[in-house]
């Protein structure tokens, strides 16, 4: 009996010792990123770590920070909508002494309190990719004008459809999302119709995910076999929609358009699965954000205002009169 106590408690201690050893090795073994001589710290808070878009954005920010010789700490929410995680990250970056914080807000009002706290502490706050509401809650914003990007997508779809009467399927992202709304409304304007137009055969929520894009498209196709043009919120949703169209034997006579500009998406365009996609440039946002913070910290002027980092239509079937690039160009500029 007493021997079994001995061995089990010894094993218990081994477990405790392991726990104890871990953070020590973390703190010492993995030396933290190089600290710069002039001690400028830039914080980056993205939406999630799992989305390749934000990973590209982070990589570009890290590269620019290295190039400018400053230290960058990158954090992310755990999931789309993790306001608490973003707020905690901002607060901790204030504690850590950041000179500027770049944030892609999870929703346009969630982190406002923490942003105000940071600005009160003299920190430059710049929104990347997604604007806050109100937009002047941050010092400056570097983002895609998603409405304009949507307009480009809509225009291309209208041209590709030609003279046929439109029967439009809309595969939206998350209802109520800022970006979703801009892209959706931009598309309608570019396509030349208004919300509620009978040309809209149906809408589905995909959360920007491939599987939901597929089921959404399947359901819309069985309800409305005459669908001939498709709006998708991003390329994974488009890929799902393509699978549904091909299963129904409709992949050649339906115009499938998307938006975002991920490298995978450009490859879909190259393969012919997607007719066209509208690319945005997260690396540009990250670079501009880091530069703005560093310039300010070195005595330059404080960044301000809204800056559109642009978008470009990628297709291998161009139409005259539209600003377009082919997939070869796209593959050199894409993210992910």
């Amino acid at each position, binding site marked *: 009996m007493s021997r079994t106590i001995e061995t089990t408690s010894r094993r*218990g201690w081994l477990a405790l010792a392991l726990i104890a050893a871990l953070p020590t090795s973390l703190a010492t073994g993995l030396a933290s990123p190089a600290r710069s001589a002039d001690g400028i710290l830039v914080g980056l808070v993205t939406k999630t770590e799992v989305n390749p878009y934000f990973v590209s954005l982070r990589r570009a920010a890290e590269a620019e920070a290295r190039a400018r010789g400053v230290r960058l700490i990158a954090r992310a929410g755990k999931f789309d*909508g993790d306001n608490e995680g973003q707020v905690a990250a901002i607060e901790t970056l204030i504690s850590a002494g950041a000179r500027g914080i770049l944030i892609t807000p999870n929703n346009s009002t969630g982190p406002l309190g923490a942003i105000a706290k940071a600005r009160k502490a003299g920190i430059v706050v710049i929104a990347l990719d997604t604007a806050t509401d109100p937009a002047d809650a941050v010092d400056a914003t570097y983002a895609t004008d998603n409405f304009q990007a949507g307009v480009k997508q809509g225009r291309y779809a209208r041209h590709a459809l030609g003279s046929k009467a439109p029967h439009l399927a809309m595969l939206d992202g998350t209802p109520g999302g800022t970006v979703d709304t801009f892209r959706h409304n931009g598309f309608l304007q570019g396509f030349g119709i208004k919300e509620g137009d009978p040309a809209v055969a149906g809408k589905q929520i995909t959360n920007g995910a491939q599987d939901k894009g597929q089921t959404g498209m399947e359901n819309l196709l069985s309800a409305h076999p005459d669908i001939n043009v498709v709006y998708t919120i991003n390329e994974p949703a488009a890929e799902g929609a393509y699978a549904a169209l091909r299963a129904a034997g409709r992949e050649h006579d339906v115009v499938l358009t998307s938006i975002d500009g991920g490298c995978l998406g450009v490859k879909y365009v190259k393969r012919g699965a997607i007719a066209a996609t509208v690319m945005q440039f997260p690396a540009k946002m990250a670079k501009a954000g880091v530069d703005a913070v560093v310039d300010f910290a070195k005595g330059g002027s404080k960044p301000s205002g809204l800056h559109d980092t642009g978008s470009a239509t990628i297709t291998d079937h161009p139409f005259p009169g539209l600003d377009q690039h082919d997939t070869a160009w796209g593959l050199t500029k894409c993210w992910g």
Partner: protein
Amino acid sequence: MLGVGEATSTVATPRTGVGTRLLRQLALNPVAGSLFTLLLFCAIFSATTHTFLTPNNLSLIVQQSVIVGALAVGETLVILSAGIDLANGAICVLGTIVAGKLVDAGYPALPCLLAAVALCTAVGAVAGLLVSRLRLPPFIVTLGLLGIVTAATRLISQGGAFPVMDDLLAWSGNSLRIGSAPITYGTIILAGLYLLVWYMLTQTAWGTQVYALGNNPEAARLVGIPVRRRLLSIYSLAALIYGVAAWLALGRIPNADPNALQTANLDSITAVVIGGTSLFGGRGSLFGTLIGTLIVGVLRNGLTLEGIDPLWQDLVTGILVIAAVALDQLTRRRRT
């Protein structure tokens, strides 16, 4: 000391020196292990950063732990009864949305808040009835409720997040200063919540019976404890606490977001388990849960200050969870 209470055992220790006895006590008492881990993390972060051990930063860690800390109180009650609650984050979000929508509709804030808390409690009562009357497994009941409540929340909110401007709803985010450290009212409310539930668990017959029915439900029934009524009260009280957590969440981020707190259920279970409470029920303490919550908070804050990749936090937390459960298994095995 707060909370080790009746459920932890002092095991007879045959003929050993003071040192080994102390070590053995530590190994056999999971809360001591958690406390040790917490202090160790604090020591490491204090030594390797100059920003960790400041009143402001410590206050921050507590503020960042308030929501999960509150949800973990309810989760502790449910887990002590040998159940599990997957719906706590969803119920909390429902509370924020309902309170926010009602206030937006122009009703006075206090009744709106009370109605939201009452609704949360009612959802918990439903869970309690399903578990106690129909004898459905708590995992299944709360998994189902997670889906139902999340869907209901999105239906009520129409999918979108919205800011909550009301002073009373956001009141718990205000703070008073003790020395140079700001203490939010939310922190004080949370402390009160821990004290109250600690008292109920350790100083009342209700608490003893909660431990007993989690430890050996058949024995609890045979000695005449009204097991079904106790289960109903456990789930209802837990959900009432989730309602209070909704209020605390609005104080922390004055924004009602149907997509928020998606991982709060697992986060709170993590805090409870790291705090040494057994998933098999009947063993553990609220003090341990407090320590577990703080461990997660300290880890998140400290690793950010160090500039270490946030994924390490998940990795370390995962190891802690497994270590804590392994310790529980080892001690359980030698006890029975």
